[in-house]
């Protein structure tokens, strides 16, 4: 099992509420800005996209790459973060 970052743990520990998209694991300032430009300004909007893609890993990764140019690691971190959040709270 790969280790999770502190950001991941923080995000997964509680309901996301109105957290910014940069609170997602794998999404930093640069990626966050790009996502915001596309209209994904809050973490829950990205969650919405994740759910609409039926939590499919490959589709979500592709979407993330196309939308903000995330690399493989960042895609994986973000996917894992959202997936675990859904497991706990959804």
């Amino acid at each position: 099992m790969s280790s999770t970052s502190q950001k991941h743990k923080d995000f997964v520990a509680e309901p996301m509420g109105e957290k910014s998209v940069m609170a997602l694991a794998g999404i930093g300032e640069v990626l966050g800005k790009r996502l915001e430009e596309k209209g994904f300004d809050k973490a829950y909007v990205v969650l919405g996209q994740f759910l609409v893609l039926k939590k499919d890993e490959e589709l979500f990764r592709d979407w993330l790459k196309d939308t903000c140019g995330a690399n493989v690691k960042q895609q994986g971190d973000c996917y894992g973060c959202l997936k675990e959040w859904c497991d706990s709270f959804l």
Partner: protein
Amino acid sequence: MPLFEEDPAHLSKSRLKSDLVAHSVALPPAQSKKDVYVELHLKHIDQKNAADFSSDEEDQVRDVADKEEDAEDAEIPDPSGLTDDDLKAALLEHGFKAGPIVASTRAVYEKKLRKLLQPDGQDHLNGAEKGVVYSDSEEEDEEEEEGSQGAKEETVERSDQTQQESSQNGDFFYPQCFLPSSRLVPSGSQSVMSNGCSFSSQAFSITQMVEEMESRRSLSVSTDTERELNGSNVQEHWSRSNRLDMPIVDKHSMKNQSLYYTPKASPYKWGMKLSQEPVKDTFKDMFPDTQATPTGIHATRRKPIKGAAGRPIQYVYPDTPASPTTQERRAVERRLVPIQIQILVFLIVVVLLYLIYACVEDNSFSPFVALLESLNQGSDGEEGLLLPAETQDTPALSGQE
């Protein structure tokens, strides 16, 4: 595109075959591409149907037929030109069940369809080449795609077929079969087996292995644990029977199947032991005390997050934490009001004592009565007070002397 008319390209090859047979049309050779079937279907059957429809629909059918004949290389033309429903249907045809196609997901699904279209042509070539070896390979093509993507409750025989098909396709077997553990969550133990089956890229029969294991274990193990062992031992077998790159794939499969608990040592062990006797349940050896569960999954209850999703709060913190000093201060404060009352009472007692002292000193009540009378008088009250006070003092003093 009208929905009631079935576009021949959307039908499976076997369906096209049966339609052609039903309309008593001569079938093309067995290894033909689907496009050949589509053409024949359009030529013979659609023209028959067109006679019943109005001229407008007939024109549409002809246009569609022309389009289909033009685009022989790709089964469906440019994905961006399709409507949402068509895109979904095209993805379904390639064996991928798509979610809602919304504005934000459209681009993703178009890309997906393009990816599916590219290796698809090569898949058909492979299918044609190996058609000689397998008698009904063409039908298995469609079945295999459906099987790999959808069926979670596949039996062992079914997964056997997918196994053969995956061996045909090799690298082009789309990684959607690398279903993440999220898909494994609702499925249970059999999906573990079937998904594990789809990982390996070499041809071997799972039924044979299962039979082997069952014959060995039939005496000692109950049916419930058998399934668990099958799941674990099947993977042991794979690593042993497949030499070169299987252990690596198995390691991946181990990692992907996060629900399935296996000790870390075991993948490395399996890679080493290629010639050893097959049946050795390392898991059970290492953990002899654990009870055998029907699914082989041992999971500890996740510690519920406080207040999350309506889960009960196990440990209730006090609302306002108070240190001992604050508690003392509160106790003291509780007495503050009584302290004021005590002071009042004290003053009243002092005044009374003073009056009593004044009475006792005089040994007679007359000045006290005069004092009282002077007190009762309203206007002369103050002056009256002073005078009797002075007169009182001087006799008191004189009395003492």
